[in-house]
C-alpha cells in the first residue's frame, strides 16, 4: 500500500482536460486524501500541449512530486514530454489509436486502451474523459462510486440520461482495466474520509476579502489573477458588494483609492504588468494615507514574460517600485489556506497603517489546487474587522469646520492619525498626492516636507503581524528561507536534507516581505547557514535582506527562473552543497540541476563597473 501516488494526464489544450482533472481532484479530496495539483499550460485557448499533475496523499503535500506513478496520455506529444518524469516501473496509459511509442531509456509499462473506439460506441466525444477517470480509479484502487456520486451532483442539471451515460463511461473504463490488467495496481492507502476543502489561491484570496469586509473590487483581467475578481463577482450579490471590471490597471488602482478614501474596503488583483502600471497610484495612496489592498499573483516577467509560468520576481517592484519614497507593506502566503486569513488581515493592516498593503502571491499558489483544512477556513478564526483610527462623528459634529486635521501631529503608536470619511460633518479635508499640511492643503514648506515624509515612512517601522514562521529542527545547521509556493517544497525538504547530511535543517517562512523583518530572521537563523530559495534571477529577497543589514557572508541562495516550480530535490541538493562548503550561490532549472553561480545581487553591479 502506498502513502501517496502521483497521477498525471496529458493532452491537447482545450480538450476538456480541465474538467476531467477537476473531477479527479474533487473526488480524491472527498475520499479524504490531501491533494496538490499543478499544471503546465500555455497562453492560448485551444491546441498546444497541456498536462495536469495531481499528487494525492494520506499526509499533507504542498510541492510537486519527484515522479509520476500513473501517466494518462491522449497524444504522442504528451508521452514525449511527460514520460521522462515517471517513477521507474510506472504505468503509462495511452489511447490505442495514437500508436504510442515510449521514448528510449524510459523504465515504464506502456499500456494501450481503445479509448477512441469505446468513446465512439458511447456516442459522445466527451465520454473519453470519463473512460479515463474510470480507468484511473481502477489502477489506483479508488472506488468508482465516488466518481459517480460527484458526476451526479456536477452534471445533474443536464438530465438523468446524460448522467447515466457518464456513469456508464466511468464504469466501462474501470471494468476494462480490471479485466485486462488484473494484477497491475498502485494501491494507495484508504483516505481518512475527513471533509476538507480544495481550492486555488485566487479563490482563497476572494474568501479572505469576503471575511475581511472587502465589498468593492476594481480590476482588469490578467493571468494568473482573474479568478479573484471572478469569485467575488459571484459572491458579492449575497453581501451587497460590487466588483467592477475596469478599463485598465491604472483605473483599477485609482478606483480602489477612491473607495478607500470613502471608507470602504477596496481591493484590486493583478500580476506583474499590472503592478508596473499601478506604481504611480501606489504613491498616491501612500501620500494621501489611504488604505488599499493589492494582490499580485506573480508570473514570469519582465514585460509580457511568461504569463503562465511561475516566478517570484516582483518583490522589488512591490516594496520599492514607483517614484519617490513611500511606505508599503508586502505580505506573502506560504500556502493556499494561509491566504484566506492573510487577505482578511491585509484590510486590517491597510486601515491601521493607512498605506498600500500588497500580497505577493505567485502563479502556483494562485492557480494550483491545494487541500485546505477546515480549521484554516473557519469564519471564527478569521481576523476580526478592525477599522483603525477613525474620527468620531459625534465629536466632530461638536466642533466647527476647519478644526479637524486629517494629517494631525497627534498620531498613535504607529505614527498614524485618525481619518474622517465623507459624510462626517466637519471632517472635510483635501486628500492630495501633492505635498500638503495638516488639513491636506498643498504646501511646499521645507519643514513641513520633512515632517510629512518622516510621518509617512515611520508607520512601517513596526508592522504588527506574524512576520515569519519557523518549521523543522531547533538549532539547525541550515535554515532554508522561502516564501510563497517555495515554502511547500522547503518544508518537505527538511527530512531529506537531514537524511542526506546527518545535519539539522529548518525552514523559515517569510510572511512579511517588506519591511524586511531582519531582526526576527537573525533571531531564528542564529549561527546556522541561511539559504534563501526564490524563483527569480537576481536574488531579489537576498538583495533586500542585505539592504536591511543582514550579514552577506552568511547568506546562501538558490535561484530558479525557468518558469517551473522549485522542487524538494533541488532544495535538498543545494542544501547539501552549502553544508559541504561547495559554494554560496546556486541556480537550478533550464534542464540542468543545481549548479554553482556568482552572487547575482552583487556581480551584476560589479560587472558594469
Amino acid at each position, binding site marked *: 500500500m502506498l502513502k501517496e501516488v502521483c497521477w498525471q494526464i496529458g493532452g491537447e489544450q482545450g480538450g476538456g482536460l480541465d474538467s476531467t482533472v477537476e473531477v479527479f481532484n474533487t473526488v480524491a479530496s472527498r475520499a479524504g486524501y490531501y491533494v496538490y495539483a499543478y499544471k503546465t499550460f500555455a497562453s492560448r485557448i485551444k491546441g498546444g500541449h497541456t498536462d495536469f499533475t495531481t499528487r494525492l496523499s494520506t499526509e499533507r503535500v504542498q510541492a510537486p512530486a519527484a515522479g509520476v506513478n500513473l501517466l494518462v496520455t491522449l497524444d504522442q506529444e504528451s508521452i514525449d514530454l511527460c514520460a521522462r518524469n515517471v517513477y521507474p516501473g510506472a504505468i503509462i496509459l495511452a489511447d490505442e489509436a495514437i500508436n504510442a511509442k515510449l521514448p528510449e531509456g524510459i523504465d515504464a509499462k506502456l499500456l494501450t486502451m481503445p479509448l477512441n473506439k469505446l468513446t465512439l460506441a458511447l456516442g459522445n466525444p466527451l465520454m473519453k474523459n470519463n473512460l479515463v477517470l474510470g480507468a484511473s480509479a481502477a489502477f489506483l484502487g479508488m472506488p468508482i462510486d465516488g466518481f459517480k456520486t460527484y458526476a451526479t451532483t456536477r452534471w445533474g442539471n443536464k438530465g438523468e440520461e446524460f448522467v447515466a451515460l457518464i456513469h456508464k463511461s466511468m464504469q466501462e473504463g474501470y471494468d476494462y482495466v480490471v479485466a485486462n490488467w488484473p494484477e497491475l495496481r498502485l494501491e494507495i492507502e484508504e483516505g481518512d474520509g475527513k471533509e*476538507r476543502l480544495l481550492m486555488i489561491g485566487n479563490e482563497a484570496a476572494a474568501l479572505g476579502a469576503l471575511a475581511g469586509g472587502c465589498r468593492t473590487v476594481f480590476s482588469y483581467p490578467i493571468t494568473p489573477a482573474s479568478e479573484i475578481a471572478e469569485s467575488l463577482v459571484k459572491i458579492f*450579490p449575497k453581501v*451587497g458588494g460590487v466588483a467592477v471590471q475596469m478599463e485598465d490597471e491604472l483605473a483599477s488602482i485609482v478606483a480602489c*483609492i*477612491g473607495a478607500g478614501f470613502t471608507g*470602504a474596503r477596496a481591493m484590486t488583483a493583478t500580476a506583474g504588468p499590472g503592478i508596473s502600471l499601478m506604481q504611480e497610484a501606489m504613491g498616491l495612496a501612500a501620500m494621501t494615507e489611504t488604505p488599499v489592498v493589492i494582490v499580485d499573483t506573480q508570473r514570469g516577467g519582465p514585460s509580457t514574460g511568461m504569463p503562465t509560468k511561475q516566478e517570484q520576481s516582483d518583490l522589488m517592484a512591490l516594496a520599492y517600485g514607483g517614484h519617490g519614497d513611500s511606505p508599503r507593506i508586502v505580505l506573502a502566503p506560504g500556502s493556499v489556506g494561509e491566504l484566506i486569513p492573510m487577505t482578511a488581515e491585509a484590510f486590517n493592516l491597510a486601515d491601521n497603517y493607512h498605506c498600500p498593503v500588497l500580497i505577493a502571491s505567485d502563479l502556483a499558489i494562485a492557480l494550483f489546487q491545494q487541500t485546505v483544512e477546515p480549521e484554516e477556513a473557519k469564519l471564527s478564526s478569521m481576523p476580526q474587522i478592525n477599522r483603525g483610527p477613525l474620527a468620531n462623528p459625534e465629536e466632530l459634529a461638536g466642533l466647527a469646520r476647519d478644526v479637524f486635521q486629517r494629517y494631525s501631529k497627534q498620531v498613535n503608536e504607529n505614527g498614524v492619525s485618525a481619518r474622517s470619511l465623507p*459624510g462626517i*460633518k466637519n471632517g472635510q479635508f483635501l486628500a492630495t498626492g501633492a505635498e500638503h499640511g495638516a488639513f491636506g492643503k498643498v504646501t511646499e514648506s521645507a519643514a513641513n516636507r520633512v515632517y510629512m515624509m518622516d510621518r509617512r515612512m515611520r508607520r512601517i517601522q513596526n508592522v504588527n503581524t506574524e512576520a515569519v514562521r519557523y518549521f523543522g529542527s531547533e538549532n539547525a545547521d541550515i535554515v532554508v528561507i522561502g516564501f510563497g509556493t517555495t515554502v511547500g517544497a522547503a518544508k518537505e525538504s527538511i527530512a531529506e536534507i537531514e537524511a542526506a547530511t546527518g545535519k539539522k535543517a529548518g525552514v523559515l517562512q517569510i510572511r512579511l516581505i517588506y519591511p524586511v523583518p531582519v531582526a526576527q530572521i537573525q533571531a531564528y537563523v542564529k549561527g546556522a547557514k541561511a539559504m534563501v530559495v526564490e524563483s527569480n534571477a537576481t536574488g531579489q529577497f537576498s538583495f533586500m535582506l542585505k539592504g536591511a543589514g543582514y550579514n552577506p557572508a552568511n547568506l546562501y541562495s538558490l535561484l530558479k527562473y525557468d518558469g517551473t516550480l522549485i522542487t524538494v530535490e533541488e532544495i535538498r541538493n543545494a542544501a547539501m552543497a552549502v553544508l559541504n562548503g561547495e559554494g554560496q550561490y546556486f541556480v537550478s532549472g533550464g534542464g540542468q540541476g543545481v549548479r554553482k553561480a556568482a552572487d547575482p545581487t552583487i556581480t551584476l553591479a560589479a560587472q558594469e563597473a
Partner: protein
Amino acid sequence: MATMADFRTSEKSWWCPGCGDFGVLAALQKALVELATEPENVALVAGIGCSGKIGNYINSYNLHVVHGRSLPAAQAVKLANRELTVLAAGGDGDGFAIGMGHYMHALRRNVDITYVVMDNQIYGLTKGQTSPTSDGGFHTKSTPNGNIEKSVNQMQLAIASGCGFVANGLSSNQKQLVQIIKQAIQFPGFALVNTYSPCVTFNKVNTYDFYKSELVNVDEDPTYDRHDKFAAMKMLMEHNELVTGIIYEDPNSTRYEDLVKGFKPEGIVNQKWEVDDETWNKVLAQYK
C-alpha cells in the same frame, strides 16, 4: 442650510487673476447651495493641472488624484457610498489626453456622478503647450508652426459613447452654468458638464470675447429638443462644439448602481461588513 460661505475655503488661490476656473468654481458652489447640499455630503475628485487645484478652494471632501484619473476614483467613491453627491473635475488635458481612456469607459458605465471639465484649449500649468481640444493651426510652445492635429470633440464623443447628459457652459455665464450643474447633479447617471474656461495667460485666441461671439445657446432656442440625440449631434457638428446649454439628455437613463445584482441603496461604508455563518458556509460549500 449651507450657504456660499460654507462651501468656500480660506485658501488663497493659485489661479491667475481672470482665470475662467474662478467662474466654474463659483457656479459649482452656487449649484450645491441651491440644491441644499451640505459640504460633508459632497465628494469632489480632481485631476492634475490648474483646474485640478479646485479642491483647495471648495469646502467638501476632496480627493486630488494622479494625472488623468479623476473619473475612476470618482466612480468608486460613488459605488462605495452612493449617499454622497460625487463630482469629478479637471481640465481638457487631464480628461481628453492622459485621461481619455477612462473618459470613454466612464461614459458608457453610467455611474451617477457629475464630471465638470474646465476646457481652456491649452496646457496652462506647464506654461502653454497644445491640448487635445486646441484648434488646428493653433500656435503654442509645442506647436510653434501651428497645431497640425485635429481637436477632440468631447461632447460628440460623449453622446456617441452612451452618455445620458451632455451640457456645455461658459465660465462667465454664471446664470446658465449654475442651472446646468444643478440639473447635471440631479440627473440619474453620468453627467458631462463641459465648460469653456478661458486661460487668460496662455490662450490669446479662445478668449471670453471669442466665446461670447461664437457660442450658440440652445437653452434660448425654444424649438431645440434636448432629448433628440440626432439633433444634438447635428448641432455640435454644425457649430464645431461651440454650443452652450443642455445639449442632450436621455429621459430613460438607468444608473450602473441600479443594475448591480444585490446592490443596496445604503452606502457600502454604512453597512455591516461582518459575514454571517450561513453566507460563509454557503460560499465554502463549493470548495468541498
